[in-house]
């Protein structure tokens, strides 16, 4: 019995050691969890862009306006990064416009001298789960420091958004990525493992056709997963879709995100010859890309080096566009840039997939 157990142990361990790639990946996973999860979730939020504007008319800056701008701009935290970057606006309408476009996270409207209630009105982007509370408490603190007794009226421009709604949109992207672990390019690898690719490599079928075919099939599989989660989001998290245009736009974004994510994993699958390697890489990518996509926690809370990952992260653009449509009711004018980024990314990955696909057995 011992001998049998040893034989099984030996065989298994030899296989493990003969595949250094998987060994490294096994170690990398927890390390990445530590580094990325730790930083993405626990990072100090700093440099929140906030518009401060003087209510008018008259537009002459009051003392309160000047003092508040200064104080808000100089709130420091424990290890020193500034909490808020104040941008002064002359025009309330322009400030609010920038808030809806996502260029600033909040607008603080300081009352004019002739205001009736002397209320400081705060407009916050409630589709963001973290910053509104931070900005609100900062404003309160500053008012207290200035001994001003102005009441604060908080205006959530997208209404009350629960965390599950914020997170639910991110999960759509996760569903898309997860489906590529079993779909995506795995068929190519299974063919290689079984040796049946030798059969079709001798036919005139082109590399482009092989990659395009696999991406299309993977995209549809991922789309079904993404759509299912979208539907569940509507049913259980209470997000509301107001128009057919909004619905169709969300579908379009999900579809394009599927193309992007599938192209990414296929570009890996086109080279790998073992499912184990593929699975470990996809799981790893899933972790990195999902953590940095802003699905859990706003990207603004991440350290700078991690924020760079989001620039090339298709999930970030997917999550951003979907939040724009679903939570903020934004249109193609605002989220168009995300779609362009996703399409560029997909194109690059498609080309990479073709370039790395081996048309021979070597």
């Amino acid at each position: 019995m011992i001998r049998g157990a040893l034989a099984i142990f030996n065989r298994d361990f030899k296989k493990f050691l003969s595949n250094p790639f998987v060994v490294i990946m096994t170690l990398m996973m927890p390390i990445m969890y530590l580094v990325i999860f730790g930083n993405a979730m626990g990072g100090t939020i700093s440099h929140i862009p906030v518009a401060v504007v003087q209510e008018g008319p008259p537009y002459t800056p009051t003392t309160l306006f000047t003092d508040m701008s200064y104080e808000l701009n100089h709130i420091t935290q424990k290890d020193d990064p500034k909490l808020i970057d104040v941008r002064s606006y002359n025009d309330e309408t322009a400030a609010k416009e920038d808030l809806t476009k996502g260029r600033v996270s909040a607008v603080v409207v300081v009352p004019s001298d002739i205001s009736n209630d002397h209320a400081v009105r705060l407009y916050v982007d409630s589709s963001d789960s973290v910053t509104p509370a931070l900005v609100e408490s900062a404003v309160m603190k500053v008012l207290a420091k200035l001994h001003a007794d102005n009441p604060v009226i908080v205006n959530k421009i997208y209404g009350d958004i629960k965390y599950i709604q914020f997170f639910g949109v991110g999960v759509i992207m996760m569903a898309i990525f997860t489906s590529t672990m079993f779909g995506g390019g795995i068929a190519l690898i299974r063919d290689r493992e079984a040796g049946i690719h030798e059969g079709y490599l001798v036919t005139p079928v082109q590399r482009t056709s092989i990659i395009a075919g696999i991406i299309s099939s993977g995209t549809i599989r991922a789309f079904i997963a993404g759509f299912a989660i979208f539907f569940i989001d509507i049913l259980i998290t209470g997000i509301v879709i107001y128009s057919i245009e909004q619905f169709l736009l969300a579908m379009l974004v999900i579809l394009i995100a599927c193309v992007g994510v599938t192209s990414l994993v296929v570009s890996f699958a086109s080279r790998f010859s073992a499912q184990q390697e593929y699975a470990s890489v996809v799981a790893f990518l899933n972790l990195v890309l999902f953590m940095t996509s802003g699905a859990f926690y706003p990207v603004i809370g991440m350290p700078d080096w991690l924020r760079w990952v989001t620039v090339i992260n298709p999930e970030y653009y997917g999550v951003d566009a979907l939040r724009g449509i679903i939570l903020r009711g934004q249109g193609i004018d605002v989220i168009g840039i995300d779609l362009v980024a996703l399409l560029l990314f997909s194109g690059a990955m498609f080309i990479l997939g073709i370039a790395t696909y081996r048309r021979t057995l070597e």
Partner: protein
Amino acid sequence: MTSHDSGHEVIRIDHLVKVFKNKHKSVTAVDDVSFSVARGEIFGLLGPNGAGKSTLIRILTTLLSPTSGTAVLDQYDIIKQPEKVRSIIGVCPQNSTLDMELTAYDNLDFYGKLVDVPEDILDKRIWELLEMTGLSDRAYMRAGTFSGGMRRKLEIVRAFIHRPLILFLDEPTIGLDPEARREVWQQIEELNREETTIILTTHYMEEAEKLCNRIAFIDRGRLIALDTLENLKKMVPEGDLITIGLDATDDRILPLIRANPLVSAAEINNSVLTLSAKEGSRVLPALVTLIEQYSLPMNSISIHSPSLEDIFIYLTGSALGADSGDAGGVKGGRRFP
């Protein structure tokens, strides 16, 4: 055997070399091989396991690139125009490449589309091929449920779904029972009548003898001989092979046997007397008389004209059944079947 010797070359192989390298050693799988194949031929590549037959086929079918040298199929160079080459060939590889999760029909349909069989005739063609393999009633069953023979037949017909100009069959009948093997042979001959050139690798002698117009012997990557069966037979010492199994031996008989003018060679190995003689049937009575004079009991006598296997052994010193590389690995039982 039919001859389609129209004189046109359909394959020209030019100093092809393939070296596989890894950290520890390099292996020359194909060693400076050159030959051509005529249009309409059934051409046999014979050699033991590991001789380099499959590597050669893989180079010709663009799956591997040669280390040096090249080959031209029809008018297309395998290195410069691999896409063109792929459009004129059909291949049945040695290992099964059927998709076990697809049905027989879907397997053929998939390949039909990849090799560009026109959509309007594809369905008819598939049923024709299924009919040919006797799998019509299993068309919608997964290939994974088929027996080894059924899979092999399906794979072979898949290779010529588009009626290719050149058909490569790498060990087409390996693992088939005699009945199924005969059916495959019939199919191959039928295809050949449709002017398809067929390149066949095998290590079954009778297969090559039955089907091939010309035969190339490959051993350790090298081309050892290439000719028609008749001409190959002339390469071994003339005459028939006689094998006599003895229970006891006597060294004195060997010189006496060799003295016979019709006997060209004779030796005794492990109590088996083997000799080649010009007219075996005329030598035999004298031989038997001689052995009886020395009261050596005989347990078997056979006489036959040399087979391909004998020729191969004569040329390489090892049997086809042996793996290439273990020199002199002659398996006693297989030497003179």
